[in-house]
């Protein structure tokens, strides 16, 4: 009996000692976190437009998509949200559920086409979002025009008990190029007008610290890529469009024309420039620039647009001579300028 009492007492003491030292596992406790995204800074640096408001406005059915992703300190995706705005002046309130801790929040703005049957519903494809180090924004393959402007913001946030709210201000991650073809009808027989590039950048890669870099591709300086292609339209003597390009250093541009099924790539001197994010550049090919000092009157200018609604600040570059016999002079109709 005494021995039995002794063992019972020992057992009770052992159980108390064991369970008093136990702690139960953690459970998931998340807090509503509001991430306010202000996209106005994405379009603000681009001041030059040939028609008022054309950079900020969207075509019918197009909207500004705002995506917010939150990654933990190990780079794992914890929460995400998506909102749509009708213009860059709006403010997106994205709600996330996050536990206490430090996170890297990424905000991405891009324009999407919500029209049924749209050939390019989006201009940038987001992939690999499960981990920040594999997250990538890839060019979807469309020229896109000004709708291809892409904005990104990255911020470290600390979530604590209670209500949390942070604001992110995305900025453009690339350069906007205004390509302006002038006096396209001056020479007969020319059916296509290209701006060639000797390097390209098709996607943006993220690192675990929230920074992002464009992946540059080149082929020993060969002009294997085109920035744009304009087709001849006898209704228009001048055509222009906007092109959004990820930043690249020492990228060279070359003007080429297709005449009688043959490409002429030496109609003007090649231009080399550093394309920087948040800067608008003018790329202007004029096939009959009366102010040009060259005998063939072809001018090809590439430079940053530093003034609002003006191209006078562009530096004029030297244009190479070309074989005038391959081009035909033709009168232009100034009234049909786009």
């Amino acid at each position, binding site marked *: 009996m005494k021995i039995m009492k002794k063992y019972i007492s020992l057992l009770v003491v052992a159980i108390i000692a064991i369970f008093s030292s136990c702690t139960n*596992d953690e*459970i*998931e406790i998340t807090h509503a976190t509001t991430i306010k995204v202000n996209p106005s800074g994405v379009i603000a640096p681009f001041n030059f437009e040939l028609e008022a408001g054309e950079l900020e406005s969207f075509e019918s059915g197009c909207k500004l998509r705002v995506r917010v992703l939150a990654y933990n300190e190990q780079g794992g995706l914890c929460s995400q949200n998506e909102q749509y705005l009708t213009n860059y002046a709006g403010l997106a309130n994205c709600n996330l559920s996050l536990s206490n801790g430090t996170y890297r929040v990424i905000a991405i703005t891009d324009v999407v086409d919500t029209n049924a049957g749209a050939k390019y519903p989006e201009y940038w494809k987001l992939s690999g979002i499960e981990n920040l180090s594999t997250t990538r924004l890839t060019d979807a393959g469309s020229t896109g025009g000004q709708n291809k402007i892409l904005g990104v913001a990255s911020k470290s946030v600390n979530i604590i008990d209670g209500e949390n709210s942070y604001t992110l201000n995305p900025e453009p991650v690339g350069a906007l190029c205004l390509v302006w073809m002038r006096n396209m009808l001056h020479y007969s027989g020319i059916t296509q007008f290209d701006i060639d590039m000797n390097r390209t950048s098709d996607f943006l890669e993220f690192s675990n610290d929230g920074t992002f870099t464009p992946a540059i591709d080149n082929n020993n300086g060969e002009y294997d890529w085109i920035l744009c292609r304009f087709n001849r339209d006898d209704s228009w003597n001048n055509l222009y469009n906007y092109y959004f390009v990820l930043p690249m250093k020492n990228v060279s541009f070359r003007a080429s024309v297709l005449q009688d099924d043959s490409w002429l790539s030496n109609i003007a001197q090649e231009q080399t420039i550093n394309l920087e994010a948040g800067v608008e550049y003018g790329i202007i090919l004029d096939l009959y620039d009366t102010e040009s000092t060259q005998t063939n009157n072809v001018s090809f200018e590439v430079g940053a647009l530093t003034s609002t609604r003006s191209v006078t600040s562009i530096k004029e570059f030297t244009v190479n001579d070309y074989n005038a016999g391959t081009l035909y002079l033709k009168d232009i109709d100034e009234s049909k300028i786009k």
Partner: protein
Amino acid sequence: MKKLFLLAAVCMMALPSNAQVTYEEDESSQQEENFEGIAVDKRKNVVSLGLTAGVNYSSMSKYDPVDLGQKGGVGFQGGLVVAARFGKRTNGSDPGTGIFGVQMEPSFVQHTIGTNSEDIKLTYFEVPILLKFYVTPNLNIEVGPNICGSLSSSPDYIEDSNTRIATGDLKGFDLKVTAGVSYELKNGLYASLRYHLGTSDLAKNFPCKVSAASLTLGYKFNIFKF
């Protein structure tokens, strides 16, 4: 945590191999004569078995970061009872009438905690191991540990004040300290009023403890004497 629980289980299995209990089918061999020559039972202790059921009123300590508006709730419980009472109150008393005893009540217990959004229901398997001190032949004071293991919890989530808590993941162990009083009738019926004080947090990052007051009714019958 699982290794510690296994160690405890091994300790519990070691107990019966060292218990010194004998059971004689021949009742006459258990009789002895006292100094007056009257035959009395020389066995002193009684083990009994039975069933118990009751209600409890549970409460949870405050969760400081967010006011969940927690309030008490009523739950139910039921299970077995295994008890032993040692010694005789007097030389002429029956076995198992002494002033000390021990009782275990392995039971399924549901605790209900009210909140601003939805009631939290925690189902535990609890084994109180109570040392009993019989103040009178019927009335006794009980005290001892109550080993609790979580079986389930609901709802999956509760939300309040911008905070979302995964209450469905509240699974773990607790060691409650139990104290109370019990009244036992000779026919085996008994009633117990107890308070169970929780000592372990429900989760490492949810530092709330569950305590409860319970009222149980039970019936136990002797299965052997030794």
